[in-house]
């Protein structure tokens, strides 16, 4: 049903960004997901983030795998090229796309089935290669389209809608991303737009592998008592370590903060991540501290959210490969084809 288009008639007073686009210009087709699905809130957050960052929609390439989450790129950024690939394989297709044109923004949208099970390997390897991307996992702990099987992120001991208990250990995507060397790692909750939008903005501005695990309750199959991915459960156990504000350029500090409460991270492109600390001891600049912190708090049943780790000066895959500044898909024949003389020279060396 994604071919349904929304009315393009906009209210004349809708606010416009620096490019003259309204928020509506960043929307896509009407969602076909269930009413109340967390994924739709994430789509809205992506729209909001791109609008606020004045991003030209056609400079974004959106890629996904298979599943409810992977349908969502049809529902935002209608003027962006999109590629709904095969199950669990979005990361490799995104990697290739990124190699072909380093100038676009690559937004990979996946789910917990897509990235923690069938695509676990591709998720890990794209992160460890440092592909410059925003990798969002819309994590609901359940297979929705196939009607309610556990996914690999479902917590051990949590219950399915039909009452079955999950006996397998859960995969914590954030911990894996940290271990694989992601240079921007965050976790959020689809129900907390105030937290999520700045995290997406920071990830877009980050020039490296940015990973966001967004807990996104499934209203149809995983929003019951006994689930650890329900709206109620997440609200009760959410422990935000910080609150992020993202600025393309530094702006004056307007509110008053206690000593040590505010921390600023300047990313390589000059953008500023202003973090208001909610947990005093938490330092998102230290990967090992972050990993330990996550483990300790997970053991207490807490879901730690916020910007968990950021390296303000990351290296991406293009830096590792030392590729030219010009996107590879824009190199001309004279730059690519050595020509007849070089070939003749080569021929004579083969005799």
């Amino acid at each position, binding site marked *: 049903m*994604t071919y349904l288009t929304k009315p393009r008639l906009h209210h004349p007073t809708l606010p416009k960004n620096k490019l003259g686009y309204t928020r509506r210009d960043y929307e896509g087709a009407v969602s076909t997901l269930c009413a109340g699905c967390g994924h739709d809130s994430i789509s809205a957050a992506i729209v909001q983030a791109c609008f606020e960052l004045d991003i030209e929609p056609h400079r974004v390439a959106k890629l996904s795998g298979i599943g409810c989450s992977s349908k969502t790129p049809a529902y935002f950024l209608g003027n962006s090229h999109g590629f709904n690939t095969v199950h669990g394989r979005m990361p490799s297709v995104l990697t*290739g796309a990124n190699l072909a044109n380093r100038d676009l923004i690559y937004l990979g949208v996946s789910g917990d089935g897509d990235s923690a099970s069938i695509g676990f390997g591709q998720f890990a390897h794209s992160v460890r290669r440092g592909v410059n991307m925003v990798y969002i996992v819309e994590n609901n702990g359940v297979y929705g389209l196939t009607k309610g099987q556990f996914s690999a992120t479902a917590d051990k001991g949590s219950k399915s809608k039909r009452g079955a208990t999950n006996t397998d250990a859960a995969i914590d995507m954030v911990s894996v991303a940290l271990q694989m060397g992601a240079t921007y790692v965050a976790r959020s909750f689809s129900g907390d737009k105030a937290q999520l939008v700045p995290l997406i903005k920071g990830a877009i501005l980050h020039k490296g592998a940015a990973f966001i695990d967004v807990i996104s309750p499934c209203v149809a199959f995983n929003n019951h008592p006994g689930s650890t991915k329900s709206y109620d459960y997440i609200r009760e156990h959410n422990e935000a370590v910080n609150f992020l504000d993202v600025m393309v350029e530094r702006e004056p500090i307007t509110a008053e903060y206690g000593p040590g409460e505010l921390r600023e991270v300047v990313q390589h492109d000059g953008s500023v991540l202003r973090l208001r600390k909610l947990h005093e001891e938490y330092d998102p600049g230290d990967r090992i501290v972050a990993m330990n912190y996550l483990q300790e708090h997970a053991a207490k049943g807490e879901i730690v959210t916020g910007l968990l780790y950021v390296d303000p000066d990351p290296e991406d895959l293009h830096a590792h490969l030392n590729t030219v500044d010009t996107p590879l898909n824009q190199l001309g024949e004279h730059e690519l084809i050595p020509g007849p003389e070089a070939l003749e020279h080569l021929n004579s060396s083969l005799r």
Partner: protein
Amino acid sequence: MSQPIERTNDFVIKFANVNGSGSASANMLFAKSILRMGVPVSPRNIFPSNIQGLPTWYEVRVSENGYLGRRGGVDMMVAMNPQTWDQDLMEIEPGGYLFYDSTKPLPKSKFRDDVSVIGMPLTEICNESYTDARQRQLFKNIIYLGALSALVDVDPNEIAQLIGEQYKGKEALLKPNVHALQMGRDYALAHLKCPIGLRVRRADRIGNKIFIEGNSATALGAIYGGATVCAWYPITPSSSVAEAFTRHCKRFRSEPETGKSRYAIVQAEDELASIGIVIGAAWNGARAFTATSGPGISLMTEFIGLAYFAEIPAVIIDVQRGGPSTGMPTRTQQADILSAAYASHGDTKHPLLFPEDPHECFEMSAGAFDLADRLQTPVFVMTDLDIGMNDRLCEPFEWGPSRRLDRGKVMTREMLDAGKEFGRYLDVDGDGIAFRTYPGAHPTRGAYFTRGTTKDRYARYSEEGPVYVDNVQRLLRKFETARELVPKPVLRPARQTTRFGVIYFGSTSPSMSEALDLLDEQGLHVDALRVRAFPFSDEVSEFIAGHEQVFVVEQNRDAQLRMLLVNECAVDPAKLLPVLHYDGTPITARFIVREISAKLAMFNVTPLRKVVS
């Protein structure tokens, strides 16, 4: 005692070595020195799936007639591996020669009395001349090379010249090698009867031909085809394609001002990621390829279906090896024909190219990128281990000064601005191919959302039956367009009109050419057609229609090309007679002649010679 074989410029010499002993470069020098004397050779590595210690062979066919296929049989064995002694001894033709290390005496029972035995105390000579164990090992190879030059009359100056080229700028290595060569030669001249019945005589049969491995040629084709992204996963016998591409890129693709790379090569975590990266890059407007072998094709099939249905160009180099499963990783076969042609679930089919040698590896690899872009679909280059991993004499590479890349139907920002209608899956001129846009092309027009699910002409999701049928029928039209674009088959008519034909492809080519000469000498006339691509050109169907019986020669058990012909050309299966060679060794002319003449006998075709005698 058989009469010793007497042959000049027409014999097979085989080196039996231990993997990792450094014999490869000495053996290669032997083959190249004969080439430098103007005599065609075709060497073949026969090696195990192993790093060190297992037996390995290097078989050199010397043929002034230019027959480059494997001949079968061995006229001289250089037996340097005690492990395989018995087997190696058995392989020598009656009247042939055995060259061995006679340092340790062997009982008479270890020899044959119908071969000439040439013993040389190689280990003893090495032990006297060198103290270092590794040197003893390495120079032993050069010493036997020196002895062979005297035994079969190879000009030692050609070998010395080649050693000079090999160690250019490394004088410290050059001198001891030339010394070892001379030492071996001097010993042979002083102690052995030289030359033996097998001799090399200077000729002028090379012309401007070149000598190169198919995999290196394929990689060079990717350079000239404008590939900028290569993603691969190591697998024998294809790994050297990506490795050669890396070498060629370093040479040809560095930005002069910055030293930065005009290419991206990723060794992926598996074949699935490799093809995924290729598809992502190609969707985004770069030319991209992967190189793999049969097991890799199996893993890639889901993605190949996506590229077929979403219509993404992709070039896949399949260097075939023995299957099924892990099969025979270091042996050759043409056994991926069906799995490549129909790779993936649902109704799919893909263009395949069948190069016969490194020259065509270059040409077809470069051409595959044009085809893939023009047809917006995966294209396979179906080479194999025999072509890919052996040096082969072939025509030089060519690239016309006016040759340009064909990027196919790409709608640009200017075309969109001019108001040209864009539908990603909209066929505007009947060839089944729609325009595509590259991501980022235009701020408000030309964006589309593609997928492996069914969609309408404007890339909108639809499961409506008529919409689906419209789309897949267009894909069939596109395949018909491919039929016109792929390389045509090559016909070699018999000297007389005949009701028999033979179809062959790929690495069978040199053995087939020789077999056709031999059949012709026997008065057996067969028209031959070398198929170079799938979908089959009309000429292929016409060839089959024009003959009563057609042999289909291939290197697999199940007659896969024959099945494809029966299926795609609607041929009566009884008309196509399989000639199948699939033991992992390259097919020989002897085998083809034996099979075809036996089958012809069943049709009461009497060879002319028999009638005369």
